[in-house]
Protein backbone atom coordinates (compact mmCIF):
# COMPACT_ATOMS: atom_id res chain seq x y z
CA UNK A 1 0.00 0.00 0.00
CA UNK A 2 2.67 2.48 1.02
CA UNK A 3 4.56 1.28 -2.06
CA UNK A 4 1.62 2.21 -4.25
CA UNK A 5 1.32 5.62 -2.61
CA UNK A 6 5.00 6.22 -3.04
CA UNK A 7 4.74 5.18 -6.72
CA UNK A 8 1.79 7.51 -7.17
CA UNK A 9 3.70 10.36 -5.59
CA UNK A 10 6.69 9.73 -7.81
CA UNK A 11 4.46 9.52 -10.89
CA UNK A 12 2.82 12.83 -9.97
CA UNK A 13 6.23 14.43 -9.41
CA UNK A 14 7.47 13.15 -12.77
CA UNK A 15 4.44 14.50 -14.57
CA UNK A 16 5.00 17.88 -12.96
CA UNK A 17 8.72 17.94 -13.68
CA UNK A 18 8.30 16.87 -17.29
CA UNK A 19 5.23 19.03 -17.79
CA UNK A 20 6.16 20.09 -21.33
CA UNK A 21 6.61 16.51 -22.45
CA UNK A 22 3.60 15.29 -20.48
CA UNK A 23 1.26 17.89 -21.90
CA UNK A 24 2.42 17.26 -25.47
CA UNK A 25 1.92 13.53 -25.00
CA UNK A 26 -1.52 14.08 -23.53
CA UNK A 27 -2.35 16.38 -26.43
CA UNK A 28 -1.31 13.81 -29.00
CA UNK A 29 -3.33 11.11 -27.25
CA UNK A 30 -6.32 13.46 -27.13
CA UNK A 31 -6.13 14.36 -30.81
CA UNK A 32 -5.66 10.76 -31.91
CA UNK A 33 -8.62 9.55 -29.90
CA UNK A 34 -10.64 12.57 -31.02
CA UNK A 35 -10.11 11.46 -34.61
CA UNK A 36 -11.27 7.96 -33.75
CA UNK A 37 -14.24 9.29 -31.81
CA UNK A 38 -15.14 11.84 -34.46
CA UNK A 39 -15.05 9.16 -37.10
CA UNK A 40 -17.20 6.92 -34.92
CA UNK A 41 -19.75 9.72 -34.57
CA UNK A 42 -19.72 10.29 -38.31
CA UNK A 43 -20.07 6.60 -39.13
CA UNK A 44 -22.76 6.12 -36.51
CA UNK A 45 -24.88 8.93 -37.91
CA UNK A 46 -24.34 8.07 -41.56
CA UNK A 47 -25.35 4.57 -40.55
CA UNK A 48 -28.64 6.05 -39.34
CA UNK A 49 -29.05 7.80 -42.70
CA UNK A 50 -28.66 4.47 -44.45
CA UNK A 51 -31.11 2.80 -42.10
CA UNK A 52 -33.47 5.64 -43.02
CA UNK A 53 -33.15 4.66 -46.66
CA UNK A 54 -34.21 1.16 -45.84
CA UNK A 55 -37.43 2.37 -44.26
CA UNK A 56 -38.82 2.56 -47.79
CA UNK A 57 -38.82 -1.22 -47.86
CA UNK A 58 -42.34 -2.59 -48.07
CA UNK A 59 -44.41 -5.28 -49.68
CA UNK A 60 -47.32 -4.49 -52.00
CA UNK A 61 -49.85 -7.32 -52.36
CA UNK A 62 -52.17 -6.72 -55.32
CA UNK A 63 -55.61 -8.14 -54.65
CA UNK A 64 -57.90 -10.03 -56.97
CA UNK A 65 -61.16 -8.23 -57.74
CA UNK A 66 -64.47 -9.51 -56.51
CA UNK A 67 -63.79 -10.58 -52.92
CA UNK A 68 -65.97 -9.10 -50.15
CA UNK A 69 -64.46 -6.48 -47.85
CA UNK A 70 -64.80 -8.84 -44.88
CA UNK A 71 -62.34 -11.27 -46.50
CA UNK A 72 -59.89 -8.43 -47.05
CA UNK A 73 -60.24 -7.27 -43.43
CA UNK A 74 -59.64 -10.80 -42.27
CA UNK A 75 -56.46 -11.03 -44.35
CA UNK A 76 -55.29 -7.68 -43.01
CA UNK A 77 -55.80 -8.79 -39.42
CA UNK A 78 -53.86 -11.94 -40.11
CA UNK A 79 -50.93 -10.10 -41.71
CA UNK A 80 -50.71 -7.45 -39.04
CA UNK A 81 -50.42 -10.29 -36.54
CA UNK A 82 -47.10 -11.44 -38.05
CA UNK A 83 -44.18 -10.64 -35.73
CA UNK A 84 -42.27 -9.11 -38.67
CA UNK A 85 -44.98 -6.64 -39.63
CA UNK A 86 -45.27 -3.06 -38.46
CA UNK A 87 -48.45 -2.03 -40.30
CA UNK A 88 -50.84 -2.97 -43.12
CA UNK A 89 -52.80 -0.43 -45.16
CA UNK A 90 -55.52 -1.03 -47.75
CA UNK A 91 -55.03 1.00 -50.92
CA UNK A 92 -58.03 1.24 -53.21
CA UNK A 93 -57.80 1.63 -56.97
CA UNK A 94 -58.69 5.33 -56.61
CA UNK A 95 -56.03 5.97 -54.01
CA UNK A 96 -53.49 4.24 -56.24
CA UNK A 97 -54.44 6.52 -59.12
CA UNK A 98 -54.16 9.56 -56.84
CA UNK A 99 -50.67 8.49 -55.78
CA UNK A 100 -49.65 7.83 -59.34
CA UNK A 101 -50.82 11.29 -60.34
CA UNK A 102 -48.93 12.85 -57.44
CA UNK A 103 -45.81 10.93 -58.49
CA UNK A 104 -46.06 12.18 -62.04
CA UNK A 105 -46.33 15.59 -60.48
CA UNK A 106 -47.04 18.44 -62.89
CA UNK A 107 -48.12 16.18 -65.71
CA UNK A 108 -51.61 15.70 -64.27
CA UNK A 109 -53.20 17.06 -67.39
CA UNK A 110 -51.53 14.30 -69.38
CA UNK A 111 -53.59 11.78 -67.44
CA UNK A 112 -56.87 13.59 -67.99
CA UNK A 113 -58.17 10.88 -70.28
CA UNK A 114 -57.34 8.13 -67.78
CA UNK A 115 -60.43 7.40 -65.74
CA UNK A 116 -59.48 4.15 -64.07
CA UNK A 117 -56.05 3.19 -62.75
CA UNK A 118 -54.66 0.19 -64.59
CA UNK A 119 -53.49 -1.56 -61.37
CA UNK A 120 -55.85 -3.25 -58.90
CA UNK A 121 -56.36 -2.44 -55.19
CA UNK A 122 -53.56 -3.59 -52.88
CA UNK A 123 -52.38 -4.10 -49.32
CA UNK A 124 -49.25 -2.14 -48.38
CA UNK A 125 -47.31 -4.11 -45.74
CA UNK A 126 -44.55 -2.24 -43.88
CA UNK A 127 -42.13 -4.52 -42.00
CA UNK A 128 -40.69 -3.67 -38.61
CA UNK A 129 -37.27 -1.99 -38.66
CA UNK A 130 -35.35 -5.21 -37.96
CA UNK A 131 -37.05 -6.92 -40.88
CA UNK A 132 -36.49 -4.20 -43.45
CA UNK A 133 -34.23 -6.45 -45.51
CA UNK A 134 -34.31 -9.41 -47.88
CA UNK A 135 -34.58 -11.96 -45.11
CA UNK A 136 -37.40 -10.11 -43.38
CA UNK A 137 -39.35 -9.71 -46.60
CA UNK A 138 -38.88 -13.37 -47.45
CA UNK A 139 -40.16 -14.53 -44.10
CA UNK A 140 -43.25 -12.29 -44.49
CA UNK A 141 -43.83 -13.76 -47.95
CA UNK A 142 -43.47 -17.28 -46.60
CA UNK A 143 -46.12 -16.62 -43.96
CA UNK A 144 -48.49 -15.11 -46.47
CA UNK A 145 -48.11 -18.18 -48.66
CA UNK A 146 -50.52 -18.47 -51.60
CA UNK A 147 -53.61 -16.66 -50.38
CA UNK A 148 -56.44 -16.81 -52.91
CA UNK A 149 -57.07 -13.06 -52.42
CA UNK A 150 -53.59 -12.09 -53.55
CA UNK A 151 -52.96 -11.94 -57.28
CA UNK A 152 -49.40 -10.63 -57.28
CA UNK A 153 -46.78 -9.53 -54.77
CA UNK A 154 -44.25 -6.76 -55.43
CA UNK A 155 -41.52 -5.51 -53.12
CA UNK A 156 -38.96 -3.96 -55.51
CA UNK A 157 -36.69 -6.99 -55.25
CA UNK A 158 -34.14 -5.47 -57.62
CA UNK A 159 -34.03 -2.18 -55.79
CA UNK A 160 -33.79 -3.83 -52.37
CA UNK A 161 -31.04 -6.18 -53.51
CA UNK A 162 -29.06 -3.30 -54.89
CA UNK A 163 -29.58 -1.21 -51.75
CA UNK A 164 -28.42 -4.08 -49.55
CA UNK A 165 -25.27 -4.45 -51.61
CA UNK A 166 -24.59 -0.71 -51.53
CA UNK A 167 -25.03 -0.76 -47.77
CA UNK A 168 -22.69 -3.72 -47.52
CA UNK A 169 -20.10 -1.93 -49.65
CA UNK A 170 -20.38 1.23 -47.56
CA UNK A 171 -20.19 -0.82 -44.39
CA UNK A 172 -17.07 -2.55 -45.65
CA UNK A 173 -15.45 0.78 -46.51
CA UNK A 174 -16.50 2.40 -43.25
CA UNK A 175 -15.24 -0.47 -41.10
CA UNK A 176 -12.03 -0.64 -43.15
CA UNK A 177 -11.25 3.03 -42.67
CA UNK A 178 -12.23 2.77 -39.02
CA UNK A 179 -9.79 -0.06 -38.46
CA UNK A 180 -7.03 1.86 -40.22
CA UNK A 181 -7.80 4.89 -38.07
CA UNK A 182 -7.68 2.85 -34.87
CA UNK A 183 -4.41 1.19 -35.83
CA UNK A 184 -2.96 4.57 -36.71
CA UNK A 185 -4.04 5.95 -33.32
CA UNK A 186 -2.42 3.00 -31.56
CA UNK A 187 0.77 3.47 -33.57
CA UNK A 188 0.93 7.20 -32.97
CA UNK A 189 0.18 7.01 -29.27
CA UNK A 190 2.53 4.14 -28.49
CA UNK A 191 5.37 5.67 -30.47
CA UNK A 192 4.89 9.09 -28.91
CA UNK A 193 5.20 7.47 -25.52
CA UNK A 194 8.26 5.60 -26.72
CA UNK A 195 9.81 8.94 -27.67
CA UNK A 196 9.19 10.35 -24.23
CA UNK A 197 10.64 7.30 -22.54
CA UNK A 198 13.64 7.37 -24.88
CA UNK A 199 14.30 10.92 -23.73
CA UNK A 200 14.40 9.66 -20.14
CA UNK A 201 16.87 6.81 -20.66
CA UNK A 202 19.42 8.49 -18.40
CA UNK A 203 16.89 8.61 -15.59
CA UNK A 204 16.18 4.89 -16.02
CA UNK A 205 19.88 4.09 -15.95
CA UNK A 206 20.53 6.11 -12.82
CA UNK A 207 17.62 4.46 -11.04
CA UNK A 208 19.02 1.04 -11.91
CA UNK A 209 22.49 2.03 -10.73
CA UNK A 210 21.23 2.96 -7.29
CA UNK A 211 19.59 -0.45 -6.95
CA UNK A 212 16.02 0.13 -8.08
CA UNK A 213 14.15 -3.02 -9.10
CA UNK A 214 12.28 -3.12 -12.39
CA UNK A 215 8.98 -2.98 -10.52
CA UNK A 216 10.09 0.14 -8.65
CA UNK A 217 11.10 1.81 -11.90
CA UNK A 218 8.13 0.73 -13.97
CA UNK A 219 5.24 1.34 -11.61
CA UNK A 220 5.46 5.15 -11.81
CA UNK A 221 5.87 4.93 -15.59
CA UNK A 222 2.76 2.76 -15.74
CA UNK A 223 0.86 5.23 -13.58
CA UNK A 224 2.08 8.19 -15.61
CA UNK A 225 0.97 6.43 -18.77
CA UNK A 226 -2.43 5.65 -17.27
CA UNK A 227 -2.88 9.25 -16.16
CA UNK A 228 -1.81 10.66 -19.50
CA UNK A 229 -4.02 8.18 -21.31
CA UNK A 230 -6.97 9.03 -19.09
CA UNK A 231 -6.39 12.77 -19.42
CA UNK A 232 -5.97 12.42 -23.18
CA UNK A 233 -9.15 10.44 -23.64
CA UNK A 234 -11.06 12.78 -21.33
CA UNK A 235 -9.89 15.76 -23.39
CA UNK A 236 -10.84 13.93 -26.59
CA UNK A 237 -14.33 13.27 -25.23
CA UNK A 238 -14.64 16.92 -24.22
CA UNK A 239 -13.64 17.95 -27.73
CA UNK A 240 -16.14 15.47 -29.18
CA UNK A 241 -18.90 16.89 -26.99
CA UNK A 242 -17.98 20.37 -28.14
CA UNK A 243 -18.00 19.31 -31.77
CA UNK A 244 -21.33 17.62 -31.22
CA UNK A 245 -22.85 20.71 -29.66
CA UNK A 246 -21.55 22.94 -32.42
CA UNK A 247 -22.99 20.61 -35.05
CA UNK A 248 -26.33 20.38 -33.28
CA UNK A 249 -26.53 24.14 -32.89
CA UNK A 250 -25.15 25.24 -36.24
CA UNK A 251 -26.37 22.58 -38.62
CA UNK A 252 -29.46 23.49 -40.51
CA UNK A 253 -32.33 21.26 -39.49
CA UNK A 254 -33.01 21.16 -43.23
CA UNK A 255 -29.86 19.06 -43.61
CA UNK A 256 -31.21 16.54 -41.15
CA UNK A 257 -34.42 16.35 -43.15
CA UNK A 258 -32.53 15.95 -46.39
CA UNK A 259 -30.42 13.20 -44.90
CA UNK A 260 -33.60 11.65 -43.59
CA UNK A 261 -32.66 11.65 -39.90
CA UNK A 262 -34.31 13.43 -37.00
CA UNK A 263 -31.09 14.81 -35.55
CA UNK A 264 -27.49 13.68 -35.05
CA UNK A 265 -26.53 11.41 -32.21
CA UNK A 266 -23.46 11.40 -29.97
CA UNK A 267 -21.33 8.26 -30.07
CA UNK A 268 -22.93 5.38 -28.16
CA UNK A 269 -22.00 5.14 -24.48
CA UNK A 270 -20.16 1.88 -25.13
CA UNK A 271 -17.81 3.79 -27.40
CA UNK A 272 -17.31 6.47 -24.75
CA UNK A 273 -16.17 3.81 -22.35
CA UNK A 274 -14.05 2.19 -25.05
CA UNK A 275 -12.27 5.49 -25.70
CA UNK A 276 -11.60 6.06 -22.00
CA UNK A 277 -10.36 2.53 -21.44
CA UNK A 278 -8.49 2.49 -24.74
CA UNK A 279 -6.64 5.68 -23.83
CA UNK A 280 -5.64 4.34 -20.45
CA UNK A 281 -4.61 0.94 -21.74
CA UNK A 282 -2.61 2.48 -24.56
CA UNK A 283 -0.98 5.01 -22.24
CA UNK A 284 -0.23 2.52 -19.50
CA UNK A 285 0.90 -0.41 -21.61
CA UNK A 286 2.75 1.86 -24.05
CA UNK A 287 4.68 3.34 -21.20
CA UNK A 288 5.37 -0.03 -19.62
CA UNK A 289 6.46 -1.60 -22.90
CA UNK A 290 8.76 1.30 -23.72
CA UNK A 291 10.47 1.12 -20.34
CA UNK A 292 10.88 -2.60 -20.79
CA UNK A 293 12.43 -2.05 -24.17
CA UNK A 294 15.17 0.19 -22.75
CA UNK A 295 15.41 -2.12 -19.84
CA UNK A 296 18.89 -3.52 -20.11
CA UNK A 297 21.62 -2.98 -22.62
Amino acid at each position, binding site marked *: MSRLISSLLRAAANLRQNWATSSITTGIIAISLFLVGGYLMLAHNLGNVVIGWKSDVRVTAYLRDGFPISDINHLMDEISGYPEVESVIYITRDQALEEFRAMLDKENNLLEGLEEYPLPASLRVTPRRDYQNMDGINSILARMGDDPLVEEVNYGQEWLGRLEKVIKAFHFIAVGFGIILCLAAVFIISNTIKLTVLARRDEL*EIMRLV*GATEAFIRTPFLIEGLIQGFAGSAVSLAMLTLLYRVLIARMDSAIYKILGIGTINFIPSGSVIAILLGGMVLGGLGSLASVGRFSRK
Partner: protein
Amino acid sequence: MIQLFHVSKWYQKDVPALQDTNLHVPKGDFVFITGPSGAGKSTLLKLIFAEERPTNGQILVHGRNIARLPTSRIPTLRREIGVVFQDFKLLPNRNVFENVALALEVLGMPRRDISRRVWLILKRLGMHHKMRANPLTLSGGEQQRVAIARALVNEPLILIADEPTGSLDHDASDRIMEVFTDVNARGTTVIVATHNMGMVSSMGRRVVHLDSGRIVQGETL
Protein backbone atom coordinates in the same frame (compact mmCIF):
# COMPACT_ATOMS: atom_id res chain seq x y z
CA MET B 1 34.47 -9.30 1.25
CA ILE B 2 35.40 -8.59 -2.35
CA GLN B 3 37.59 -10.84 -4.45
CA LEU B 4 38.75 -10.59 -8.07
CA PHE B 5 40.33 -13.62 -9.74
CA HIS B 6 42.15 -13.07 -13.05
CA VAL B 7 39.65 -10.48 -14.12
CA SER B 8 39.95 -8.86 -17.54
CA LYS B 9 37.74 -6.31 -19.22
CA TRP B 10 38.00 -5.61 -22.94
CA TYR B 11 35.66 -2.86 -24.11
CA GLN B 12 37.23 -3.05 -27.56
CA LYS B 13 39.27 -5.61 -29.41
CA ASP B 14 42.57 -3.74 -29.43
CA VAL B 15 43.26 -2.77 -25.82
CA PRO B 16 42.02 -4.12 -22.50
CA ALA B 17 40.80 -1.67 -19.86
CA LEU B 18 41.70 -4.24 -17.21
CA GLN B 19 43.95 -7.25 -17.58
CA ASP B 20 44.33 -10.38 -15.46
CA THR B 21 43.64 -8.56 -12.22
CA ASN B 22 43.64 -10.24 -8.83
CA LEU B 23 42.48 -8.38 -5.77
CA HIS B 24 41.22 -9.20 -2.31
CA VAL B 25 39.48 -6.58 -0.20
CA PRO B 26 38.52 -8.01 3.20
CA LYS B 27 35.37 -6.89 4.96
CA GLY B 28 35.94 -3.57 6.73
CA ASP B 29 39.00 -2.67 4.70
CA PHE B 30 39.79 0.84 3.39
CA VAL B 31 41.58 0.78 0.03
CA PHE B 32 42.70 3.50 -2.34
CA ILE B 33 42.88 2.75 -6.05
CA THR B 34 45.30 5.07 -7.80
CA GLY B 35 46.77 5.35 -11.25
CA PRO B 36 46.94 7.71 -14.20
CA SER B 37 43.98 8.72 -16.32
CA GLY B 38 42.63 5.78 -18.29
CA ALA B 39 44.42 3.21 -16.11
CA GLY B 40 41.20 1.31 -15.43
CA LYS B 41 40.24 2.54 -11.95
CA SER B 42 36.62 3.28 -12.83
CA THR B 43 36.39 0.03 -14.77
CA LEU B 44 37.55 -1.93 -11.73
CA LEU B 45 34.93 -0.25 -9.57
CA LYS B 46 32.16 -0.71 -12.15
CA LEU B 47 32.82 -4.44 -12.19
CA ILE B 48 32.15 -4.67 -8.47
CA PHE B 49 28.63 -3.25 -8.63
CA ALA B 50 27.93 -4.93 -11.98
CA GLU B 51 27.61 -1.79 -14.10
CA GLU B 52 30.00 -3.66 -16.37
CA ARG B 53 30.48 -7.39 -16.69
CA PRO B 54 34.02 -8.86 -16.82
CA THR B 55 35.24 -10.32 -20.12
CA ASN B 56 37.17 -12.99 -18.19
CA GLY B 57 37.65 -14.04 -14.62
CA GLN B 58 35.50 -14.26 -11.53
CA ILE B 59 34.37 -11.61 -9.08
CA LEU B 60 33.04 -12.46 -5.65
CA VAL B 61 31.16 -9.86 -3.61
CA HIS B 62 29.89 -11.17 -0.29
CA GLY B 63 29.98 -14.66 -1.74
CA ARG B 64 28.01 -13.79 -4.90
CA ASN B 65 29.69 -14.45 -8.21
CA ILE B 66 29.14 -11.18 -10.05
CA ALA B 67 30.29 -12.59 -13.37
CA ARG B 68 27.35 -14.97 -13.34
CA LEU B 69 24.79 -12.96 -11.38
CA PRO B 70 21.45 -12.98 -13.20
CA THR B 71 20.22 -9.50 -14.13
CA SER B 72 17.25 -9.83 -11.83
CA ARG B 73 19.56 -10.20 -8.80
CA ILE B 74 21.57 -7.07 -9.54
CA PRO B 75 19.29 -4.63 -7.65
CA THR B 76 19.78 -6.61 -4.44
CA LEU B 77 23.54 -6.40 -4.87
CA ARG B 78 23.49 -2.68 -5.56
CA ARG B 79 21.40 -1.90 -2.52
CA GLU B 80 24.24 -3.16 -0.35
CA ILE B 81 26.69 -0.88 -2.13
CA GLY B 82 26.84 2.89 -2.02
CA VAL B 83 28.45 4.37 -5.11
CA VAL B 84 29.84 7.86 -5.66
CA PHE B 85 29.99 8.09 -9.44
CA GLN B 86 32.80 10.00 -11.08
CA ASP B 87 30.21 11.98 -13.07
CA PHE B 88 27.83 12.16 -10.08
CA LYS B 89 24.79 10.80 -11.98
CA LEU B 90 22.27 13.03 -10.24
CA LEU B 91 18.74 13.15 -11.64
CA PRO B 92 18.39 16.59 -13.23
CA ASN B 93 14.64 16.87 -12.68
CA ARG B 94 14.63 16.09 -8.96
CA ASN B 95 15.87 18.30 -6.21
CA VAL B 96 18.74 17.50 -3.87
CA PHE B 97 16.51 15.95 -1.23
CA GLU B 98 14.75 13.71 -3.75
CA ASN B 99 18.03 12.63 -5.30
CA VAL B 100 19.41 11.48 -1.97
CA ALA B 101 16.08 10.01 -0.88
CA LEU B 102 16.04 7.82 -3.98
CA ALA B 103 18.64 5.49 -2.43
CA LEU B 104 16.25 4.90 0.48
CA GLU B 105 13.07 4.76 -1.59
CA VAL B 106 14.41 1.83 -3.56
CA LEU B 107 14.72 0.01 -0.22
CA GLY B 108 11.02 0.65 0.46
CA MET B 109 11.73 2.67 3.60
CA PRO B 110 8.82 4.66 5.11
CA ARG B 111 8.79 8.32 4.08
CA ARG B 112 9.20 9.67 7.63
CA ASP B 113 12.44 7.74 8.20
CA ILE B 114 13.65 8.81 4.78
CA SER B 115 13.24 12.50 5.59
CA ARG B 116 15.18 12.21 8.81
CA ARG B 117 18.07 10.25 7.38
CA VAL B 118 18.39 12.39 4.28
CA TRP B 119 18.45 15.52 6.37
CA LEU B 120 21.11 14.11 8.69
CA ILE B 121 23.48 13.08 5.92
CA LEU B 122 23.02 16.36 4.04
CA LYS B 123 23.74 18.26 7.23
CA ARG B 124 26.86 16.23 7.81
CA LEU B 125 28.12 17.12 4.34
CA GLY B 126 27.12 20.78 4.69
CA MET B 127 24.45 20.58 2.00
CA HIS B 128 21.24 20.80 4.05
CA HIS B 129 20.66 24.44 3.09
CA LYS B 130 20.49 23.39 -0.59
CA MET B 131 17.96 20.61 0.05
CA ARG B 132 15.32 22.04 -2.27
CA ALA B 133 17.75 23.11 -5.00
CA ASN B 134 17.94 21.45 -8.40
CA PRO B 135 21.28 19.70 -8.98
CA LEU B 136 21.73 21.69 -12.20
CA THR B 137 21.90 24.89 -10.17
CA LEU B 138 24.59 23.60 -7.84
CA SER B 139 28.30 24.29 -8.05
CA GLY B 140 30.52 21.37 -9.01
CA GLY B 141 31.62 20.73 -5.45
CA GLU B 142 28.07 20.91 -4.18
CA GLN B 143 26.95 18.34 -6.73
CA GLN B 144 29.76 16.08 -5.67
CA ARG B 145 28.71 16.28 -2.03
CA VAL B 146 25.12 15.40 -3.00
CA ALA B 147 26.46 12.37 -4.85
CA ILE B 148 28.41 11.38 -1.73
CA ALA B 149 25.33 11.87 0.42
CA ARG B 150 23.30 9.55 -1.80
CA ALA B 151 25.98 6.87 -1.57
CA LEU B 152 26.14 7.09 2.22
CA VAL B 153 22.51 7.60 3.17
CA ASN B 154 21.54 3.92 3.21
CA GLU B 155 24.56 2.96 5.34
CA PRO B 156 25.86 0.49 2.78
CA LEU B 157 28.02 -2.53 3.51
CA ILE B 158 30.40 -1.39 0.80
CA LEU B 159 31.18 2.19 -0.21
CA ILE B 160 32.65 2.71 -3.65
CA ALA B 161 33.78 6.23 -4.43
CA ASP B 162 35.18 7.17 -7.82
CA GLU B 163 37.24 10.34 -7.52
CA PRO B 164 34.99 11.69 -4.74
CA THR B 165 37.01 14.84 -4.11
CA GLY B 166 37.87 15.90 -7.67
CA SER B 167 35.66 18.98 -7.42
CA LEU B 168 36.41 19.77 -3.79
CA ASP B 169 38.96 22.01 -2.17
CA HIS B 170 41.47 20.78 0.36
CA ASP B 171 39.40 21.41 3.48
CA ALA B 172 36.25 19.92 2.04
CA SER B 173 38.21 16.85 0.87
CA ASP B 174 39.57 16.38 4.36
CA ARG B 175 36.07 16.51 5.78
CA ILE B 176 34.90 13.91 3.29
CA MET B 177 37.79 11.66 4.24
CA GLU B 178 36.83 12.03 7.90
CA VAL B 179 33.32 10.89 7.05
CA PHE B 180 34.68 7.93 5.08
CA THR B 181 36.98 6.98 7.93
CA ASP B 182 34.02 7.16 10.26
CA VAL B 183 31.73 4.88 8.21
CA ASN B 184 34.69 2.55 7.75
CA ALA B 185 35.14 2.40 11.49
CA ARG B 186 31.51 1.30 11.76
CA GLY B 187 32.22 -1.65 9.47
CA THR B 188 31.69 -0.41 5.93
CA THR B 189 34.25 -1.59 3.42
CA VAL B 190 35.54 1.50 1.58
CA ILE B 191 37.14 1.61 -1.86
CA VAL B 192 38.19 5.00 -3.20
CA ALA B 193 39.64 5.69 -6.64
CA THR B 194 41.56 8.94 -6.72
CA HIS B 195 44.38 10.95 -8.27
CA ASN B 196 44.95 12.97 -5.17
CA MET B 197 48.24 11.49 -4.03
CA GLY B 198 48.59 14.02 -1.23
CA MET B 199 45.35 12.78 0.28
CA VAL B 200 46.30 9.12 -0.23
CA SER B 201 49.61 9.50 1.54
CA SER B 202 48.18 11.53 4.42
CA MET B 203 45.58 8.83 5.07
CA GLY B 204 48.15 6.06 5.39
CA ARG B 205 45.81 3.35 4.10
CA ARG B 206 46.33 0.46 1.73
CA VAL B 207 46.99 1.59 -1.85
CA VAL B 208 46.43 -0.37 -5.05
CA HIS B 209 48.17 1.23 -7.98
CA LEU B 210 46.90 0.59 -11.50
CA ASP B 211 48.62 1.35 -14.78
CA SER B 212 47.31 0.51 -18.25
CA GLY B 213 44.85 -1.98 -16.87
CA ARG B 214 47.28 -3.85 -14.65
CA ILE B 215 47.80 -3.66 -10.91
CA VAL B 216 51.44 -2.65 -10.53
CA GLN B 217 51.37 -2.33 -6.73
CA GLY B 218 49.23 -3.78 -3.97
CA GLU B 219 47.91 -6.82 -5.85
CA THR B 220 46.78 -9.69 -3.64
CA LEU B 221 44.92 -12.87 -4.29
